[in-house]
């Protein structure tokens, strides 16, 4: 066996490879969605799968998201492992009836007799200049639905490893793909993929002592950049990449915040009723006596996702993160 050299790969190519390897290993894995066949998906994540595995394994469906996910339920009931692609975040909404009423609840309704191993891949988030309905951060809707795993990779290694784990999971997984990281690159060897932490674990991406930035998906690189910038101001920031929103890794997060005593949650979805509120509450419950300041949130504004020409004002950038970090000094100042 020849080993391929470690080469720069994009997150998109790692996701594509994960699908291919999963299909090659397990004939019950089927991919379905709009334009996933001949076109290879609008982001080319399914490129080549129909050619390699045939139309029955990688299927262009009629244009109907409820139909795509609803038929996936039936396929899973009969022993297949469907991986469905929703073309964009906001176009998954027609499938919510199936997702919430059936996908999330089938295991529970049948007392464990009928689990549904379905992976729902959803490109999500903004920052790519997309027009209306192409940039929603929909994670809070999924998180609010018991019975679903909700995960989102931020690195090329995780893109591969987590998608493999999602497909292998016996539970439904909403696999959120941060669109603006699709073209981000890293050194990566498809033939010797790095071992990654299992789904459900958070990972400390950067060690630090002064405060913890708790983040995920598209905001991970923003936080890493902010941590670098903060050094100039004497802050040594720790960055925790959650990777998995459900289940939530209380342990890693709490351990980090106990070490640093301060925390900021960073994400681009809206703040009010958003993931940050839940995360901040959990951190407070577990770390109250270690906290030197309230847990702060840096989020997108509570507005419908803006048009591309204005999105830079909405997305939390490095400066907004640093401003929050500065506000963590409130207690020592007063």
């Amino acid at each position: 066996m020849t080993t391929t050299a470690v080469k720069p790969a994009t997150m998109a190519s790692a996701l594509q490879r994960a699908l291919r390897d999963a299909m090659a290993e397990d004939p019950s894995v089927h991919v379905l969605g709009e334009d996933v066949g001949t076109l290879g998906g609008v982001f080319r994540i399914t490129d080549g799968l129909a050619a390699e595995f045939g139309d029955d394994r990688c299927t262009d469906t009629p244009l109907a998201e409820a139909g795509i996910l609803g038929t996936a339920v039936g396929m899973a009931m009969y022993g297949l492992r469907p991986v469905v692609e929703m073309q964009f975040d906001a176009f998954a909404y027609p499938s919510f009836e199936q997702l919430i009423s059936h996908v999330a609840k089938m295991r529970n309704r049948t007392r464990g007799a009928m689990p549904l191993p379905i992976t729902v891949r959803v490109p999500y988030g903004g920052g790519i200049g997309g027009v209306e309905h192409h940039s929603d951060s929909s994670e809070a809707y999924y998180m609010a639905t018991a019975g679903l795993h909700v995960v989102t990779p931020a690195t090329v290694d995780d893109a591969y490893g987590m998608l493999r784990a999602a497909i292998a999971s016996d539970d439904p997984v909403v696999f959120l793909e941060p669109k603006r990281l699709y073209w981000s690159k890293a050194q990566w060897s498809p033939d010797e993929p790095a071992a990654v932490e299992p789904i459900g674990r958070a990972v400390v991406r950067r060690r630090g002592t002064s405060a913890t930035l708790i983040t995920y998906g598209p905001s991970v690189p923003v936080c890493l950049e902010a941590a670098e910038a903060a050094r100039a101001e004497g802050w040594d920031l720790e960055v925790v990449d959650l990777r998995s929103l459900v289940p939530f890794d209380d342990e890693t997060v709490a351990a980090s915040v106990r070490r640093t005593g301060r925390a900021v949650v960073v994400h681009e979805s809206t703040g009010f009723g958003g993931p940050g509120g839940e995360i901040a509450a959990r951190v407070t419950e577990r770390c109250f006596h270690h906290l030197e300041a309230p847990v702060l949130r840096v989020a997108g504004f509570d507005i419908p996702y803006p048009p591309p020409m204005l999105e830079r004002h909405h997305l939390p950038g490095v400066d907004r993160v640093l401003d929050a970090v500065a506000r963590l000094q409130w207690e020592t100042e007063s």
Partner: protein
Amino acid sequence: MKKSSTSVQELPGAAVRRPTPPPAWQPRTDPAPLLPDPEPFRVLGTPAAAGADPALLLRLYTELVRGRRYNTQATALTKQGRLAVYPSSTGQEACEVAAALVLEDRDWLFPSYRDTLAAVARGLDPVQALTLLRGDWHTGYDPHEHRVAPLSTPLATQLPHAVGLAHAARLKGDDVVALALVGDGGTSEGDFHEALNFAAVWRAPVVFLVQNNGFAISVPLAKQSAAPSLAHKAVGYGMPGRLVDGNDAIAVHTVLAEAMDRARRGEGPTLVEAVTYRVEAHTNADDATRYREDSEVQAWRAHDPVKLMERELLERGVLDEAGIKKAAEGAEVMAARLRERMNAEPTLDPMDLFTHVYAEQTTQLAEQAALLRAELEASADPAPSGDARDAGSTGGEAAGERR
């Protein structure tokens, strides 16, 4: 099944119990014949064209020429980065233009994301109609002004709105018809089916126009629907379906006009399928060579809606070379004006992000607005801090990556 009823009788010794037959089932015959003619309706190049109103033909022609020019201009603007994206309707102008011209002032148009042209032909400011696609706002116009609903990006979701509006107008006693546009792919969505059903049950004054342009991004019609035609789908809901050559502007206008009249008379909705072709790629970001042969595109180019109309008018002496030149010049003026206006940077106020979320701003939004205002003021202020960070940075390298 036949077998099971006989087997009960054949059971030895069993008392023969004949079930009472169900009451005779009557298929409903009203409304009367609904099935579409299998051959799409055509006018141009047929004897029927002689009966067409020359003034209408000329008007359609002028709009087709302008529409084509609008499409090529908008596509060019994407190459210069002036538009985030443009889904061209080149090849489909006959549908777009007929849809706009068939409406009375008081009627409403419910366009899909590809139908900028129909909105412009209806009278919308060409720049305002492009606002969504340029990316400075989501809908660039007041829908009430020309009675054009916002261009709908989530497919088929505008169709129930059209039904509801038409229904409301009728409840109020207003003589208004809604015309809703959808693509062939959009007919697979649940919203399409629900809209048709409501419309038929309520006999709502609404007309559905499906522009069957062969593809939903890469997916050909054969993978989208197994129905004999999309117009056939009407029958199951109890409304007539009509097939029309979507590149024949006068045929589309004729069929839509009949459907609009029918709706106005209170006879309910109609589903019209216009058979046409998407000559350009799905959008400027799409690579159509991945899923179709150029020979197919070329064959359709030979059945061009602008050329078909031009030939008819020339043959009938309604148009001559001078007239063709005049129409082209008019279109050129429109394009030059569009180009010029689109080349000017739009003036954007980031504070608008908070202006139209609620009728009255919430305290949370007011706080966020204050935050943004402070950021904007700080970045406008050339403070000598040596801090090179951009206040509005998204932190995302791909932010400039336009799709």
